Every structure is written in C-alpha cells, then in structure tokens.
C-alpha cells in the first residue's frame, strides 16, 4: 500500500529514507526504482527480524565514486572552493599525504586524515582566485598621485606624520586597547618658526624633541578613542605653535644660565681677552687702541670662533687644536 509522505524527499541519486520503525514509501515514479531495490535488499538482509524494532539500523548508503574522479583538468577551481572551507578529500584531486609515518610506512593518505582538516588551507586562494578577487576590488582603489613619487617630496608637502596601529586577532573581544594610541611626528624645520619661537617650542616640549633628527614626536593615549587622541595631538601641536610665537613679560628675565647655546658677546671670555690685550699694549708701547678696533681684528675673531665652537660642541681634537692656533695668533707666538 502506497502512502504519501508529508515531506518532499530530494533525490540526488541517493535515497534518504528514515526507517525508525515507520515505513515510509514514496509513490512518485522517479524514486520508485531505486527504492524498490533498496527495500528488497534490506528485507533480505534482515531475516532475523531486526527490521521492525525501534532500534533498527539505518540502511547504509551506497558509496559513490569520489567527486575527484569526474573533475577535469580545465575545470574552474574557484567554483570548487569559492571561500574558506575545511579540507574535503573527495573534493581535492591531489594525492596528498600528511602525518607521521608508522615504522617502515608512509604518511597516511588523505582519506579520513584529521591532520589535513586541522591545518588551515589556502585552497580558496589560488592565484586564479586572487586575480578574480583583485579584478573585482580594482574599482575601489585609487592611484597614488604621480607627483609624490619619492619620500622627500612627500615630506615637503605633507610634513606631519600620524602613526596608528590596528590589531586583528581572535579572542573573546574584537577590541584592543592599544589601538587608541596615536603618534604625531613633525620636523620643526618645516614649521614656520623664527629663532625665539624655535627655542621656546623646544623648551616647552622637553623630551619629545630629538635634536639629532630635528623631529618632534607627540604621543597621545589619554583618550579612549583613536579619533579623540588624534584630535588632541593636533590640538597640542596648534597650541605649541601659537604659544611659541607669543612673547611673555617674564621672558625678558632670561639669564645666561637659561641660554641654549653659548654666545661670546658680553661673556667673561670677551672681557678677559680685551682686558689682556689692552694691558699688553700699555705694557709694550703705549698705543691706546679702541676696544672696537681690537674686537674687529682677525685674531680676536678667530679666538671668538674657537671658544664658541669648544663651548657649543663636544670637545674634540680638532676644536682644541683650533683653540690652540687662535691663542698663538693672538699672542703672536
């Protein structure tokens, strides 16, 4: 007796008949032939009356040929693995072996191999697939402006460099608190600063300025979001720039100890040498020379250069030699 089932059973050449104590038969023509052979085979195999109990075995599917047997060499592989999927031995036509071999054996074959399933595979990212993907992504890309081909031109037109880091990892949360940190780097030579402004901004920033590379680095991490930190860094740069141009009343009280570099004018060294030369002249001959003329003479200028160099730069052999020569010239030795 043929009974209609409520469900539609799709046939892909295999029949999936649930036989848990309920005999379901399908009466449509396409299913009939396969079903009848299965049923007869099943009934013959179960002579000991197992077929009708509540725990009767599911009928075994007939094993088909693996899909790899029907694959041609010219097939479109991107259709077989369009996205990241685990390794399927029946879908990959390669004779891959993976695993540690037993004694006097070879690595196990791909069928039923867990090692091949565990490792991430790149079967969906073959060169052909990458080319296809990039063809689709091309419209969303823009070209780099051809006039900015080297770094120097880039620095000249865009002197400020903003660095930030993104983090991608698997875990309970997508967020990474280190992603909010923003570094802002700018060369002071590219900013519009005069002498006073430059000295003032260097004093204001302190450790953030590197004298060797002339780079000011502002690192902001006090705000919770990257955009906020970026805005804060830009604000700091703006404020520093404007403040360095202002001249406050108390800046007039700058003493010699506050100076960044040594200047020879009105220094004890100048007073000493002028004094010395005047006394020498008085002791020798009696020609009283003007201070200004003494200052303008070549030897005193050389002495001034050598002393300034010694004080400003680190003491080196060449600078001390230069000082020695200058002193000898002043005293005509």
């Amino acid at each position, binding site marked *: 007796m043929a009974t209609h089932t409520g469900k539609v059973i799709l046939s892909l050449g295999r029949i999936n008949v649930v036989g848990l104590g309920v005999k379901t038969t399908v009466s449509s023509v396409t299913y009939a032939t396969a079903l009848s052979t299965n049923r007869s085979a099943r009934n013959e195999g179960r002579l000991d009356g197992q077929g009708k109990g509540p725990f009767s075995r599911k009928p075994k599917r007939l094993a088909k040929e693996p899909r790899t047997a029907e694959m041609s060499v010219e097939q479109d592989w991107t259709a077989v693995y369009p996205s990241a999927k685990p390794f399927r031995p029946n879908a990959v036509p390669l004779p891959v072996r993976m695993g540690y071999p037993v004694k006097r054996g070879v690595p196990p074959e791909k069928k039923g191999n867990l090692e091949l399933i565990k490792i991430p595979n*790149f079967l969906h990212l073959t060169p052909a697939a990458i080319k296809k993907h990039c063809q689709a992504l091309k419209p969303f890309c823009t070209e780099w402006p051809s006039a900015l081909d080297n770094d120097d031109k880039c620095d000249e037109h865009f002197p400020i460099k903003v660095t930030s880091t993104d983090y991608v990892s698997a875990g309970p949360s997508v967020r990474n608190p280190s992603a909010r940190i923003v570094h802002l780097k700018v060369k002071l030579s590219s900013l519009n600063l005069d002498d006073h402004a430059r000295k003032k901004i260097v004093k204001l920033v302190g450790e953030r300025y590197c004298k060797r590379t002339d780079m000011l680095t502002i690192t902001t991490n006090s705000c919770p979001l990257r955009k906020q930190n970026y805005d804060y860094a830009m604000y700091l740069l703006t404020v520093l720039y404007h403040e360095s141009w202002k001249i406050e009343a108390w800046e007039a009280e700058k003493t010699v100890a506050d100076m960044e570099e040594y200047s020879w004018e009105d220094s004890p060294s100048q007073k000493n040498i002028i004094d010395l030369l005047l006394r020498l002249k008085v002791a020798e001959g009696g020609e009283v020379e003007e201070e200004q003329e003494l200052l303008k003479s070549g030897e005193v200028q050389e002495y001034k250069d050598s002393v300034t160099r010694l004080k400003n730069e680190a003491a080196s052999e060449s600078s001390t030699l230069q000082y020695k020569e200058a002193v000898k010239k002043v005293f005509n030795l």
Partner: protein
Amino acid sequence: MYFQGPKPCLSHTKYNVTRCHLPLKASTSYFHTATVFKSTPSLITVTEEPDTLFQKVSILVKCHDRAVLDSYELFATMAANELGITISKVYEPPKAIDRLTLLKSIHIFKKHRVQYEMRTHYRCIELSHLTGCTAQAYLEYVQRNLPEGVAMEVTKVQSTALLTYSK
C-alpha cells in the same frame, strides 16, 4: 582649522583624488556572481572628500606555524601586486619562544618537571605609497582571508599637512 582641504599649492590635478565610498551590501555580490555585476548599475559612489595618503603601511602577522605564514605571505604579496601596490620590504623577524617549566606531578616530586614552549613566528610586509581607498580595500581583503590562528598588526603612517603652520 586643522582639516585637510583641497590643496591649492599643488598644481597637478591628479592629487585631488576622491574618496570611494563602498556600500556594505555590494561587497558580497562580487565574489559569486560575475554576471550580476555587469548588469546592475555601478554601486561605487565617488565623493569630493580628499583621500588620505599613507606613506607606509606595515603588516605584521603572527602565527604558531611557519608554513601557514609562508602561504599567507604568498597570498598577500600576490594581491598587492595585482592591485598595483608597491611592496618595499618583506622579511621574517626572528621567532619568539615562550618557555614554561611546571611540576610534572600534582603532589610532591619536585625533581621531576615538564617543560612547555610556545613558538610565535612572524612575517612583516611593508607597503609604501598607498591612498586611503586602496589601503582600505586591500586591508579589508587581506584581513577577511586571515586564516585561523593567525594574528595581525597593521601600522599605518599617514602624511598630512597643516597649511596654517607650514612655511
């Protein structure tokens, strides 16, 4: 006062690149049905907002398995070449091994220990001279195809200008 505007000082027009805005739905349709892409109207909108410029984009990938990183490097470099991005350097920083020594037994037997180690392999791909649109498209593509068990850090150096303060 510190936003970038269109730049009057650069006379070449090519600089004023416009930002491509990608509506989220469109990205899924391109990979499966090529024919649909041709027939639907263009889903790319072009805005007047000036594009950001990245002087350097550095991608550092970390994994416990060196072979996976080899394959990933192949994929990322091929994708960059296809999209026309200049790759300045691809190198392998030395691996880091974290070692741990624990007691082998749950109770006493202090002299018998067991040692574990965690190896982290690195690979660094440095790209230079990217625009904001290209960087966004490339990074999204490369990050969506990150395999399981691989972590990535992307460091971007963006070049900007403050017109009011430059000489």
